[in-house]
């Protein structure tokens, strides 16, 4: 059913594109009294009649096949009621109705043998046909991947519309142009040839504009739908796009030869026919591209698919030491020189060969010097996004798994006994997906066992979250009770705030709204501080702070234990406290610790090991400094990298 759907999409897309191009070329050629041109025009109109029927039929097949895929049973394709539902109750179905409507009106217009002897009638008939064809083609964008982009869908759809219309005008026009050139080249008719070449020249200008629009809209669409190199190289959608781009190179080369070499010299009959052959070749390649485009519409956009990295290495700028950085900078300068040499070669007419050779040599030297420090090993899962968020619950379960399976070699604190130091920069430089691969498959030559069969996937991701928290905790020792203005880098692991039977909240609910002072307390030692916090809650609240209190040890009902006087009005977490205490214990150990988390969700100040703020004015001063910050960083990612 998928193959049928793909075939239907391709034939439908190709016929719509060819239809628009053929009608466009008719308009470009203009009304003519010449017999050869009239013959060509008649054959193009006949072709268009056929194409519009093919487009309507392929559209019907598409709807039927899509109903089967939509209902997830092949039998649905033959049930009128299911097809009816797919057409009327789904958005792609409504768009389909609109497009089929335009195609049917276009078919009626083309099949009606209207009298177009008057020039105005001729133009009106052809322009109307082109308008209807363009409407049918452009409407496809309303149900494309572009229309599914959350905010900014209108803009994405506009970009997509310009992409398909430009395709229609350029790609679709090629076969009709080839026919025209062929017809004009066969007859020994100077007038026909002049008209054909004039049309070809006008088409060449229009095609140049169309190609520029295609490149611009295609790039914008790729950024929106693919977004990253990993998604480009590692997903079906991305690879189809790469194949499309690869096919585009010979097409553009042919187009350039046609435009710069063949077209200016095409006045002779033989040359016109050669141009016709080249244009036909170009058109055939373009039809192959349309097949790839059809396949792309049926695959998950690369941005939303899980990339499988195909290479055993990747390039990264992270974690370079000074020597390596100097090498890379030197290489980039050599590369710049190569670019200048290339520019010079394209501008200068003399000494082009030595300049090109020099540029090539410089590129080789720059690559040999600059690339090796950037290369790191990579695995198929390198760019896999962790399915588990950076959450206290996951980190705490990871901590238990780590203690059981990993601590014997890597040490309880990750410093490494027999195994590697997990807090080292070389581990921090590794993507989470790479650690996932190494944990699963092991490193036999270094004695690291494979855990794929021993730990569930979820447990492996939990361990990775824990290792990341461990690495962060090592660096976090530099954080003290005073914030460093505009220096937010330590993402606060999310946690659940469950107060009694009330619907639980989460730390991330405060993002963009309030500063959070997380207080991990132990009674009776923290009694005095908790009383002070309860008294100053109103003031801190006005400053934009929410206090979240978490008991380090739960013995009874935490809220009851804190007592009624003075009243404690801030959230006191009663359930799931162990995970929060374990996770934040990595950053701020102690029976009593306080962590100041800014509005963006970064840890900014830490009071650890009972060194609680002397009084509220200390916290207040830090909060005021946070409130004075001008450029907040973006929210931290919910997943580790």
């Amino acid at each position: 059913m998928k193959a049928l759907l793909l075939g239907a999409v391709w034939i439908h897309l190709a016929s719509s594109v060819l239809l628009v191009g053929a009608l466009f070329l008719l308009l470009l050629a203009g009304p003519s009294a010449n017999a050869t041109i009239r013959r060509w025009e008649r054959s193009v109109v006949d072709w268009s009649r056929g194409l519009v029927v093919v487009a309507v039929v392929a559209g019907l097949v598409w709807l039927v096949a899509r109903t089967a895929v939509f209902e997830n049973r092949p039998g649905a394709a033959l049930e009128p009621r299911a097809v009816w539902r797919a057409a009327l109750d789904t958005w792609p179905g409504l768009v389909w109705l609109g497009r089929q409507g335009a195609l049917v009106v276009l078919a009626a217009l083309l099949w009606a043998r209207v009298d177009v002897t008057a020039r105005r009638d001729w133009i009106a008939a052809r322009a109307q046909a082109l308008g209807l064809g363009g409407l049918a083609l452009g409407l496809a964008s309303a149900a494309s991947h572009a229309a599914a982009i959350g905010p900014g869908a209108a803009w994405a759809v506009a970009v997509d519309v310009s992409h398909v219309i430009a395709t229609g005008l350029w790609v679709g026009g090629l076969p009709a142009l080839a026919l025209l050139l062929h017809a004009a080249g066969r007859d020994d008719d100077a007038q026909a040839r002049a008209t054909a070449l004039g049309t070809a020249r006008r088409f060449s200008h229009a095609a140049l504009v169309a190609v520029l629009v295609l490149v611009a809209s295609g790039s914008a669409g790729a950024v929106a739908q693919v977004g990253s190199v990993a998604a480009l190289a590692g997903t079906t959608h991305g690879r189809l796009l790469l194949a499309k781009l690869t096919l585009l190179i010979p097409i553009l080369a042919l187009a350039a030869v046609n435009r710069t070499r063949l077209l200016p010299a095409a006045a002779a009959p033989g040359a016109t026919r050669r141009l016709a052959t080249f244009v036909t070749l170009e058109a055939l390649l373009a039809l192959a591209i349309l097949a790839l485009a059809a396949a792309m519409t049926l695959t998950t956009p690369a941005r939303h698919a899980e990339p499988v990295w195909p290479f055993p290495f990747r390039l990264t700028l992270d974690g370079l030491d000074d020597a390596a950085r100097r090498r890379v900078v030197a290489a980039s300068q050599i590369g710049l020189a190569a670019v200048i040499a290339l520019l010079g070669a394209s501008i200068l007419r003399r000494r082009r060969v030595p300049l090109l050779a020099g540029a090539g040599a410089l590129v080789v030297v720059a690559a040999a010097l600059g690339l090796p420090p950037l290369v790191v090993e990579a695995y198929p899962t390198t760019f896999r996004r962790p399915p588990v968020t950076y959450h206290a619950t996951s980190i705490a379960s990871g901590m238990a798994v780590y203690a059981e399976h990993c601590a014997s070699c890597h040490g309880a604190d990750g410093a490494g006994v027999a195994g590697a130091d997990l807090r080292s920069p070389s581990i921090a430089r590794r993507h989470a997906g790479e650690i996932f691969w190494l944990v699963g498959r092991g490193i036999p030559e270094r004695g690291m066992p494979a855990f794929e069969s021993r730990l569930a996937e979820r447990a492996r991701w939990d361990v990775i979250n824990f290792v990341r928290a461990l690495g962060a905790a090592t660096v976090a020792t530099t954080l003290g009770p005073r914030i460093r203005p505009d220096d937010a880098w330590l993402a606060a692991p999310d946690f659940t705030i469950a107060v009694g039977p009330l619907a639980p909240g989460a730390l991330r609910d405060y993002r963009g709204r309030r500063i959070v002072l997380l207080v991990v307390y132990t009674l009776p030692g923290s009694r005095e501080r908790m009383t002070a916090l309860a008294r100053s809650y109103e003031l801190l609240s006005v400053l934009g702070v929410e206090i979240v209190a978490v008991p380090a040890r739960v013995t009874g009902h935490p809220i009851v234990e804190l007592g009624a006087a003075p009243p404690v009005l801030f959230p006191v977490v009663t359930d799931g406290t162990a995970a929060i205490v374990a996770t934040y214990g990595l950053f701020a150990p102690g029976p009593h610790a306080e962590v100041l988390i800014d509005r963006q969700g970064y840890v900014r100040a830490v009071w650890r090991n009972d060194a609680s703020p002397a009084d509220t004015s200390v916290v207040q001063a830090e909060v005021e400094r946070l409130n004075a910050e001008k450029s907040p960083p973006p929210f931290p990612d919910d997943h580790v990298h």
Partner: protein
Amino acid sequence: MPLWQVVVVLNLTFAVGLGLGYAGWGRRVGALEREVNADRARIERLERERGACARGAKAGEQQWEGRGLVRAVYPRLLVITHEEIRGLLPARTTSFAVPATTSAPRVGDAVRFSLRGTAPDDVAIVAIEGW
């Protein structure tokens, strides 16, 4: 009539039809949707008023039900961290007036409570029980 004039007239008809269709039908749909939402809110309010009336409230008063956790107890005032109270308040910590006759809960108790009043700023707890 020559063909080009037919084409122009047909296209104009189509454009005008689309515009009028939106102006008439599309806007009407929007207005109806707003009307339905307003009516739905009114029905909810009337239902709360009826509920309040059945329990002996004065005319015009409504009744809301809430669930929460008692955080502070003062004479004739309770501070409760509560879930969303539909049609009145989002989930947050609020202080509510209580009549002296109601038996006072203790801090930390999970409670269900009924509020009665005419507007968000004059509601008072009329009944309270363990959750």
